[in-house]
Structure formats: structure tokens, C-alpha cells
């Protein structure tokens, strides 16, 4: 029997851990294959595909009208944006005009959706950090109000199918607008409340500062978008850089941090908080500027919906980043090809870089901070 005398660098044995797909903190069914050296991650590999539902293939086997109803299940927390991305690319293809009233409504509901998505993120992120019972439910209290509003206007709390090719589904009544107005009035205070509890909390600062630093160059390489890249030193936001809909008419700021060496998880947190405030501003303006009369849709919403032949790509700024939809049509009842550019997929892929060298306890703090929705990754 013989044994080799190993070099002095050998520390402790490496351990391979499967985090997920049944781990309580992987937000769905992500599996992360971690190679650990003691408590530290040496290699991390996200294994995806557990939620694959062939959404693109389904788009080629459903009529336009059917697929519209299906597509907001891709990113179930921000269904308005997926609908909108698809509607926009189809409208480009179809050269159809969207009525101004519908555009305002679209912006309004999308920003509401952005807020509700960020609220859910905030709650679950704090759960990831171990604030298990206390704070997470406060964002959910506000989100509940938004979901009630959605339910009334779209008939659904999460899978809205509200934004349609050519316009929107229906108009809100006065009572609804009044309730939304009331919500926007008090929301600013609510955000202050969250910040009072969380932002300067010493344990929260300790857990989030100086970890998961994402340099700008790395973010660009992996195609990271949304608040995650804005925390790393760029002001890329489609609403400003490539304005669409009625955004040019609205006044709002895009928050970003001038940190090309990389933003940490706390930066990503604070940007989302600020974004909620901006979205609230946008909703307020929309409420003031919303035309009371006018068409709701430039196309007829029925089973005979067709889109002209050709191909088109267009994208919107979703809560998680750039959400793009590429479509090829031959003018018949079904599309020839759908291809989606999902922000979560790109944001997730950078994890294998971000996690290297961090202790196990930070995995969830970093993973939560890039804000990933698993159906959006797997489609």
C-alpha cells in the first residue's frame, strides 16, 4: 500500500452539493451544482430546464389569438411586459396604429406590474436573507392592492392577457381610476416605510454590501440587463435609450450608479427601490394625461386575428431587463417562428461567475439580487 504525499496547498476536501431543484430558496426549480472548498464556492453551474414548457413551439402551433393568452405565463410576475413585447413586434409587422388611450393604459398597467414585481422580489429577497416572518409581508400588503386592481381591469390577478395586439382589452372605470389614484398617493410613504426597516439595517448592510460584485464588462459579456446592469455603471434603459410608446411624453428618471468596477447586491436592491418610486411617478402622470374617450384597439380582437407576412423584432424594458420578441409570420392564422429574448436567462448565466469565491451563505443573497424568474429562464 502506498500513498502519495500531496502538496502543501491541499486544504480541505472538495464537496459537491446539489442546491435544488427542491431547495426552498431557489425560487422554483433551479438546480445549482456547487463545488465547495470548505464553505466557499469553487465552481458553480446552474442547471436549467426543469420548467421547460416549449413556449416558443406552442407559439407556432396556436393561433395568434390563442398564443396571446398563453404568453404571459412565461414571466408570471410581469405578464404585462411579455404581452406587450409580443404585441409590439406584431404591431410593427402589421403596421397597425395603436390608439393613444391604449398606449397610456399600457404604460400605466405595465408600471403597476413593475411595482408589483419589485414588491414580490423585495419580500422574497428578505426571506432569502433570513428575515423569515416579519418584514416580507409588508410588500405583499401593497402588492395585494395592485393585484386587486389587476383583477378588476383584466379579470385575472396574474395571467392578465390585458395588452392585446393592436391595443388593450378594456377600459377602466372611474372607481378603478380613483382607487389607483389613492394607491399612488400612499405608495410613496409605503416605500419610505420599507426603507426605514431595511435599507440601513446593520445586519442587512452586513449581508449585502461588498458581495456579488458584478463588473460592467462582465455584465456586458453575459448580456445582463435591467437594474442589475444599471447598478454596475450604465444607464441603459429602453424607456430612455430607445423610447417607445408614450414614454417620451412622460417625465421620469432612470436611476443608475456610476460604478464601472461593479455594483454589489445592495446597489441592486437600492436601484429597485428607486425604480418603484419612479414607476409610481409615471403612473401618476398617466392618470392625469389619460384621455377619457377614444378607441381601445387598432385591431379587432377575435379568433380571426391575422398578422401580415414578414419578420420583426421589438423589445420592452421589463422589471428584469430587456425582454425581446422576434416573430416571423406568413400572414396565416399561426406564426412561423417565435423567438424570445428573456432577461432572466442572461441574468442567470452570469451567476456561475458571480458565485465563485463566495461562501455558501452568500449564494442566496447574490442569487436573489439578480432577480430571476425560472419559467422566464426555461420558457
Amino acid at each position, binding site marked *: *500500500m*502506498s*500513498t*502519495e*504525499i*500531496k502538496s*502543501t496547498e*491541499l*486544504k*480541505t476536501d472538495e464537496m459537491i452539493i446539489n442546491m435544488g431543484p427542491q431547495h426552498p430558496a431557489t425560487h422554483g426549480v433551479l438546480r445549482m451544482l456547487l463545488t465547495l472548498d470548505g464553505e466557499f464556492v469553487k465552481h458553480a453551474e446552474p442547471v436549467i430546464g426543469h420548467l421547460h414548457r416549449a413556449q416558443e413551439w406552442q407559439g407556432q402551433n396556436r393561433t395568434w389569438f390563442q398564443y396571446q393568452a398563453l404568453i404571459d405565463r412565461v414571466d408570471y410576475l410581469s405578464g404585462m411586459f411579455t404581452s406587450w413585447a409580443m404585441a409590439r413586434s406584431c404591431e410593427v409587422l402589421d403596421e397597425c396604429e395603436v390608439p393613444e388611450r391604449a398606449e397610456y393604459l399600457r404604460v400605466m398597467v405595465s408600471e403597476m406590474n413593475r411595482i408589483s414585481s419589485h414588491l414580490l422580489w423585495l419580500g422574497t429577497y428578505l426571506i432569502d436573507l433570513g428575515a423569515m416572518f416579519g418584514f416580507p409581508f409588508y410588500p405583499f400588503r401593497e402588492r395585494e392592492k395592485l393585484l386587486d386592481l389587476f383583477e378588476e381591469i383584466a379579470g385575472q390577478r396574474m395571467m392578465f392577457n390585458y395588452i392585446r395586439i393592436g391595443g388593450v382589452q378594456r377600459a377602466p372605470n372611474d372607481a378603478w381610476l380613483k382607487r389607483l389614484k389613492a394607491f399612488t398617493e400612499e405608495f410613496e410613504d409605503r416605500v419610505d416605510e420599507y426603507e426605514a426597516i431595511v435599507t440601513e439595517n446593520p445586519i442587512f448592510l452586513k449581508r449585502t454590501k461588498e458581495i456579488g460584485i458584478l463588473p460592467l464588462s462582465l455584465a456586458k459579456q453575459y448580456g445582463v440587463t435591467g437594474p442589475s446592469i444599471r447598478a454596475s455603471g450604465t444607464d441603459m434603459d429602453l424607456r430612455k435609450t430607445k423610447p417607445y410608446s408614450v414614454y417620451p411624453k412622460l417625465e421620469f428618471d432612470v436611476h443608475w450608479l456610476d460604478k464601472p468596477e461593479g455594483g454589489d447586491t445592495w446597489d441592486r436592491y437600492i436601484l429597485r427601490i428607486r425604480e418603484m418610486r419612479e414607476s409610481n411617478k409615471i403612473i401618476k402622470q398617466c392618470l392625469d394625461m389619460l384621455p377619457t374617450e377614444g378607441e381601445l384597439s387598432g385591431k379587432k380582437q377575435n379568433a380571426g386575428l391575422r398578422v401580415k407576412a414578414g419578420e420583426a423584432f421589438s423589445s420592452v424594458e421589463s422589471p428584469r431587463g430587456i425582454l425581446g420578441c422576434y416573430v416571423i409570420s406568413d400572414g396565416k392564422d399561426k406564426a412561423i417562428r417565435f423567438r424570445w429574448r428573456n432577461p432572466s436567462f442572461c441574468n442567470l448565466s452570469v451567476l456561475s461567475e458571480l458565485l465563485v469565491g463566495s461562501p455558501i451563505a452568500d449564494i442566496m443573497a447574490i442569487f436573489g439580487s439578480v432577480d430571476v424568474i425560472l419559467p422566464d429562464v426555461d420558457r
Partner: protein
Amino acid sequence: MEATSSVETRSDFTRFIATFIYAVIVAAGVAIVFAKTTSPGGARQMMSIDLDIWLFAGITVAGIALRYFFAAYSEAVKVIACLGGFLIFTIGHDPMTRYLTLSALLFAIGMYGMVKSRNAVRVLMSIELMLNAVNINLITFARYVDPAGVKGHLFAIFILTVAAAEAAVGLAIVLSIYRNLATVDMDRFNLLRW
């Protein structure tokens, strides 16, 4: 550090020498006992001390027999032998002898473990066991011989302290060796072999 490529665990030669030395010691012991018992007055002297010597001899023989006939159940054999022996040696004696005998037995078990084990951490564990046996001894004397004083207690406290220090340093050394050699086998700690 020496970068030897492969190390033999135990060479046949060393093994042979070691066995030979052991055998000589055993033979010497047997010879002494034999000479004692056959010398005039020797046997009577030993008999007069106690009958226990024959008990020891009997149990030794029984132990060896058990070891060879029930090798597969060696742990059960050890447990039964120790418990039975302990009962035989202590039943009917005063409490103090009971405690002292238990202490001696635990000490012997610790010694056995220390000599036998190849895992360095288990050797440390055996040493802790022996130190504890000593503690029992001290507290027993403090209880039955000198209840008014606290010397036994004080020595026990110092032994606790030393044991804690010993465990800390010993384990640190084991960890350090493990980090370098990736083993805790005592036979492979041979950096200072020749």
C-alpha cells in the same frame, strides 16, 4: 518537506522484529510467574495475598480462548469479558474498591485504545479516557479518605485544564498533519522516520 513518492505502511522486517520483541517480553513474564509459583514459599505467598491471581489467570485464558473462537464478534466478547470481569472483581467489596477498580479498568481500556488505534484522533480520545480514569481515582480518594479537604478536587480541576489544552493542541496538530499528508493514520506520520 521531503517529497518521497511512495511510502510503505509497515515493512515485513520491522514487523518481524516488533513481533519478536513482544514475544520475548511475554516469555519473560510467563517465566517470572512460573518461577515465582514454583519457588518454595512463593506459591503460598501469592496464594496468601489473594485468590484473585488465579481469577486473573483464568480470565486471561478465557479471554484468549474467546478471542480465537469468537473472532467475528470481538467487540461483544470484549464487552462481555470486561463487564463480567468487573462484576467478579468488585462484587462484595467496599464502595471505594469498586470505584478504584472501575478507574483501573477504564485506564486499561484507554491504554489498549491508545496502543491499538491507527487513527490519530482516536489515540487522542483514548488519552482523554485515561485522564478521566485518573480523575475518578482522585475524586474517590477525596470522597472516602479525605472528605474534609479538597486536594483531590483541585487536582481533578487541573487535570481538566491540562486535558483541555492537550485536546486543543493535539487536534490542531492532527489537522495540520492532515492538511499536509491527507491522512490521519498514525503509521503514515513518518516525516521524522529515519
